[in-house]
């Protein structure tokens, strides 16, 4: 064995390779795995430097997050005001603020730290559904400042709350008559703003939109740091215009030896015509390096279930709300799908509601008939409401699915009470149905919409418990821990067509590991989210997670 080989020994290596499920030693050379096995088996190769720093740790393949966004890296430059605890890229547990008073307190703290009195204060992560449907009003935010503009962006990213000074500067008052400016009981705007017109006006008076600013290398490094903290070694950025500046930032960041994650950006189909999009993806794919993997496209067909913008089949929303929005028209989708399919480009198609899922399945079916492509692996993203019949069609067509397991915890109660009703809420994000029908599947966070944390995502799929403690369809849809680990490693890699490179610890693949203090297969299933993550190994380079 060459002298530049390093042999990591661990208490246990859970390989996620079904042919060799566990081991104690893994040999690494030039960033890739040379051999996996017992001490004796590895010794038979001869030579190599033994690194036993993980002798008390458990190694798994680095987690693969198949649906998250670079915005996770951008948001952490702003204060977090969500109801649940969340870990920052610095590894710090930022406590949830589950009341109006604690939200205001956190904002006051952030406001005091600002030096420029004119600079707007942005914050993120708020969701009234998580604090008993209590609204955050302009009066609440005025307690933070009456002179500095303040904007709190909801977890959904579609709604915001602003303070009175923002409303005044935007000239939004009791006479304003547009749908996106919500009025309070006093007849004046409450401070809640949503929709394109209100956002346009507010961002103009604030001078910027923190969500559409230019991406910086710092943002990408924060994203990579969050990945290290959460044990993620392959991460998506699943909807990006891929403007020249973004491409340059990704190129620069990914070429650094110490960049600690493999990044998989998906081009947003909406940003280009199919012809231009295909040409762009092909050109970008030619520039791929070990840590930057272009090649996929993202299509968004409908909105979100909890925002009542997802497209549902009959009988629609449980509470009678009117059906949601098409972002791509059902008759336009087949043309777009056919073009990317024929060009051999893998599609990731966002469909939350089951009507959107149906339209996407039909489009792939038509494309497969017109231009049969074996192993296309087009993947429906979220696909939260699909029933068994739809899963069977997916299976027949070779479609994969990436289910939004975190929704069970964060919005499961809303789905049970408001959007889907008991029966459909119990099969929300139907991982059990996917298993039974044999549809290849992953599970995801959609970070920053919910926290980046594959172990937590696995915990959601295993326990299917909501934030209020209600259990949804555990008997029929829950995964075992082993199955859930598959869905955050090798099967997530499969949905990205990267399972030949990452997702398991076996000879030939990248030496990408997550280093855990305990074995998820040994601890009680309800505690897998609490396992401490020591850090990661990416391409053989060890990185201890920061702990602030």
């Amino acid at each position: 064995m060459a002298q530049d080989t390093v042999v990591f020994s661990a208490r246990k290596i859970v390989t996620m390779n079904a042919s060799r499920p566990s081991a104690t030693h893994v040999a690494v050379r030039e960033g890739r795995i040379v051999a996996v096995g017992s001490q004796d088996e590895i010794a038979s190769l001869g030579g190599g430097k033994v690194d036993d720093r993980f002798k008390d740790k458990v190694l798994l393949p680095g987690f693969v997050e198949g649906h998250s966004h670079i915005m996770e890296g951008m948001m952490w430059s702003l204060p977090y005001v969500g109801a649940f605890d969340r870990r920052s890229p610095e590894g710090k547990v930022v406590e949830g603020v589950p009341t109006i008073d604690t939200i205001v307190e956190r904002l006051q703290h952030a406001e005091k730290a600002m030096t420029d009195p004119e600079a707007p204060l942005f914050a993120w992560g708020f969701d009234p559904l998580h604090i008993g449907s209590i609204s955050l009003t302009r009066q609440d935010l005025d307690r933070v400042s009456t002179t500095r503009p303040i904007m709190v962006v909801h977890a959904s990213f579609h709604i915001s709350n602003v303070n009175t000074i923002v409303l005044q500067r935007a000239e939004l008052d009791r006479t304003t008559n547009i749908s996106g400016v919500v009025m309070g009981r006093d007849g004046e705007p409450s401070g809640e703003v949503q929709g394109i017109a209100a956002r346009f006006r507010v961002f103009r008076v604030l001078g910027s939109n923190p969500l559409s600013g230019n991406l910086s290398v710092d943002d990408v490094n924060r994203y990579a740091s969050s990945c290290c903290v959460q044990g993620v070694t392959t991460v998506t950025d699943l909807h990006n215009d891929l403007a020249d500046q973004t491409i340059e930032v990704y190129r620069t960041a990914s070429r650094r030896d110490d960049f600690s994650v493999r990044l998989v950006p998906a081009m947003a189909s909406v940003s280009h015509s199919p012809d231009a999009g295909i040409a762009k993806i092909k050109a970008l794919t030619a520039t791929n390096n070990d840590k930057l993997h272009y090649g996929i496209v993202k299509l968004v067909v409908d909105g979100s279930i909890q925002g009542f913008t997802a497209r549902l089949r009959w009988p629609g929303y449980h509470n009678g709300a009117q059906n949601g929005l098409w972002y791509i028209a059902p008759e336009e989708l087949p043309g777009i799908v056919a073009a990317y399919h024929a060009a051999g480009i893998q599609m990731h198609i966002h469909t939350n509601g089951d009507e959107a899922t149906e339209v996407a399945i039909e489009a792939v079916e038509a494309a497969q008939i017109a231009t049969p492509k074996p192993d296309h692996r087009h993947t429906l993203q979220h696909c939260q409401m699909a029933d068994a019949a739809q899963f069977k069609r997916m299976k027949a067509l070779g479609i994969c699915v990436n289910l939004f397991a975190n929704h069970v915890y964060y919005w499961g109660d809303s789905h049970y009470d408001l959007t889907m009703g008991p029966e459909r809420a119990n099969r929300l994000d139907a991982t059990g149905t996917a298993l039974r029908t044999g549809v290849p599947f992953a599970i995801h966070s959609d970070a920053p919409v919910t926290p980046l944390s594959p172990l937590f995502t696995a915990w959601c799929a295993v326990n299917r418990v909501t934030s209020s403690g209600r259990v949804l369809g555990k008997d029929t849809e829950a995964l075992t821990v082993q199955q859930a680990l598959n869905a955050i490693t090798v099967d997530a890699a499969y949905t990205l067509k990267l399972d030949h490179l990452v997702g398991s610890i076996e000879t030939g693949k990248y030496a990408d590991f997550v280093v855990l203090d305990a074995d998820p297969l040994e601890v009680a299933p309800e505690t897998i989210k609490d396992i401490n993550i020591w850090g990661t190994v990416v391409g053989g380079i060890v990185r201890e997670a920061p702990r602030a």
Partner: protein
Amino acid sequence: MMASPRITTPVTVIGGFLGAGKTTYLNHLLRNGPGRYAVLVNDFGAVNIDAGLIAKHDGETMTLTNGCVCCSIGSGFLDTLGRILDGGTRFDHIIIEASGVGDPWRIAEIALVEPSLRLNAVIVLADASRIGQLLAEQRVGDTVRGQFDRCNLILLNKIDLLDRATLDKARAELVALRPGVAIIETTAHTLPGLPDGISNPASRFAATDAADHECNFRRWAYRRDGVFDRDRLEAALGALPPQLLRLKGPCSVTEPAHPQLLQMVGRDWALTPVEPDSSNDNDILLVGIGTANLPPAATLDAILDAALIPPLTTTAELNRRAVTSNI
């Protein structure tokens, strides 16, 4: 609070489902625009302008030799519109294409809250050969119906493909959806200009173009000395026929007493305080624009006259106080 006088740019939003003819209409407006138009489109590739008319093309923005610009919305609508407002070029009109599944009114609301803009019209196109089927369609029917909710004008397009009975049926479907809404029947070759005659933009083109441009619309001017009763004015504006698309101009009302600017688009109207303009001969000078089947000026005059103090009732008095109703 007294609103400061501002120069505002009119905004027209063009909506309609896929295939209704939005792109053809936008191409028509770009080529024949009598003023300097900024046109924001979804599919840049579908814009079809003769190479000889293109002065500059930088990927995201196309500048035409007639002064119009066409911008690609891409996925960043807010950024695109922001760039136009901040770009330093003053446009006579901003035209925004809603997406085929979008609600044009949501975009129109921008012009209601952005002080540098004012809403001119929401125009929705309908493919006469399939609108009836689309309105009833299970998956997209609600989306299509919603697009007409707040429009001021429907262009019932592609009528050359249909016989009169089928056309009347399509028309009836739209009238049932929006009773009384203004409808113009069009083909790809008879698309109208914008109903923007009121602001009389400083056109860089000869007046002959403007005549063609407005052939589908009729103007109406209402000039009186006197004062409107606030409550009766509200009733009178509500009684104006739907063929009237816009009405705008200075007037005096009982409450508040300060001179006001009346602006009405479709059924929405507002009064905002203005400085008295000594160049006006009349207390009230309203100019309206409607479709070609706008009722006669005398009919319209009578509706507003009923709101004057005291109400004008006799022809003699009308003749005495009316300066002119022709333009």
